[in-house]
């Protein structure tokens, strides 16, 4: 029953998010602040992880190809496919559920504990629109983060090939360009947009409706990370089944 109640409340929160909008002059500032906190603030860690995971994917692919009949260009091909299809959109989103998600839950949860949300409501402000909508708009720039993750993942793979001597640069670049299907990019970015929506709303839900004190803010952050990850993984499966299976 609690799960059903939470799901119902979540969808009502989504409806409320688009209802009774905050003045644009105020909203604009909030959106820019959230772009800075959620998007720009995540670029460092996303770049670091993407570069090195791209390198690791390349090294593992190279080490597992010991048949001389398999061309070395397959290393670049496998790296590209892994990074574009799964690593960048899904793996980075799980990391973002931890970084951005827990930030959103704890910041909104602290506002709940310290009665700041009550203060907004007493003033007649739609607190869901005021707090959640700017995060939703900011995270619509999330595909920008993911495209950087894709690029740096492949660059990391290239660096691993060069420094680990796993083949030639030409073979790797040939592999990266091999059998390129533009629809895969569409699939990856569609997933990214869906995950961005999940990243903005589920952590906000856990922060907004939390009850209790400082300890509960911590618990809400953990629960929000778990459920955001679970929903991302499930949606990843469903979208892959719908869009890639023939």
């Amino acid at each position: 029953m609690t799960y059903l109640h939470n799901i119902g409340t979540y969808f009502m929160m989504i409806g409320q998010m688009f209802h009774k909008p905050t003045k644009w002059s105020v909203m604009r500032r909030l959106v820019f602040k959230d772009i800075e906190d959620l998007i720009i603030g995540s670029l460092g860690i996303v770049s670091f992880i993407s570069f090195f995971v791209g390198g690791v994917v390349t090294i593992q692919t190279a080490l597992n190809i010991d048949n001389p009949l398999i061309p070395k260009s397959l290393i670049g091909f496998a790296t590209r496919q892994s990074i574009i299809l799964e690593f960048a959109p899904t793996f980075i989103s799980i990391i973002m559920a931890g970084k951005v998600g827990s930030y959103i839950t704890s910041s909104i949860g602290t506002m709940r504990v310290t009665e700041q949300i009550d203060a907004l409501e007493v003033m007649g402000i739609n607190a869901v629109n005021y707090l959640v909508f700017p995060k939703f708009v900011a995270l619509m720039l999330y595909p920008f983060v993911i495209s950087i993750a894709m690029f740096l993942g492949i660059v990391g793979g290239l660096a691993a090939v060069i420094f680990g001597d796993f083949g030639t640069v030409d073979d790797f670049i040939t592999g990266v360009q091999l059998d390129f299907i533009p629809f895969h990019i569409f699939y990856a970015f569609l997933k990214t947009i869906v995950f961005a929506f999940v990243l903005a709303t589920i952590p906000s839900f856990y922060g907004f409706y939390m009850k209790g004190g400082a300890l509960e803010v911590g618990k809400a952050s953990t629960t929000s990370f778990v459920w955001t990850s679970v929903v991302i993984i499930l949606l990843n499966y469903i979208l892959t089944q719908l869009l890639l299976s023939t």
Partner: protein
Amino acid sequence: MIEVKDIEKSFGDARILKGISTTFEEGKTSMVIGQSGSGKTVFLKCLLGLFTPEKGEIIYDGRPYSGLSDDQRSDLRAEMGMVFQGSALFDSMNILENVMFPLRMFTKQSKSEMADRADEVLKRVNLEDAHKKMPSEASGGMQKRVAIARAIVNRPKYLFCDEPNSGLDPRTAIVIDNLIQEITEEYNITTVINSHDMNSVMEIGQKIVFLKDGVKAWEGSNKTIFKTDNEAVTNFVYSSDLFKKVRQMYLEERQ
């Protein structure tokens, strides 16, 4: 003026408010007192429109809350100011921005007009030099004064305060009490304060409503509370030794 007519509020099987009726007049500081769990906070949240009573009516200057549309309720809320127990200042904004916040949300004033008005109310609460401070850098008393400034900046008709003195030393508490009373009289606001601080009650309680187990057990003022024979009130008021002595002195003086 706020008229409360026979309101009832329950949560599940628990009846919190059991038919409360009273009136809060403009230009007067009215206090709702009672022990913890007596229903004070639920009553205040009903007045604020955060809880909807199952029965009864709250009328704000002739406007019954239940008959208002969503837009009219929003307009009514814009006429309310609230001072929270923990001040509830927005910690991402400095003191000036906190005070300007209601103006930014509800008026079309230019930035300089908003800053001038915020400056004026900050001066009114004796905080001329704290504009750029963040709430975390301000003391408890300072935060309360900022909360009062934020509550009155948009010239509200109704001011609600939930335990405005909690966590303050007695001297600062008196400053806050006097400030609320002065502002109430100066701007002719209908002020309702939730409190169980008897010093405040004696200092500024021009009207006092005593709640016990969700029922209005007594109504009067700081001038009449000493004279009442209502057992529930006397038990509450004279639970403090200080007030016991004051009452004894009062009775001796009368004899």
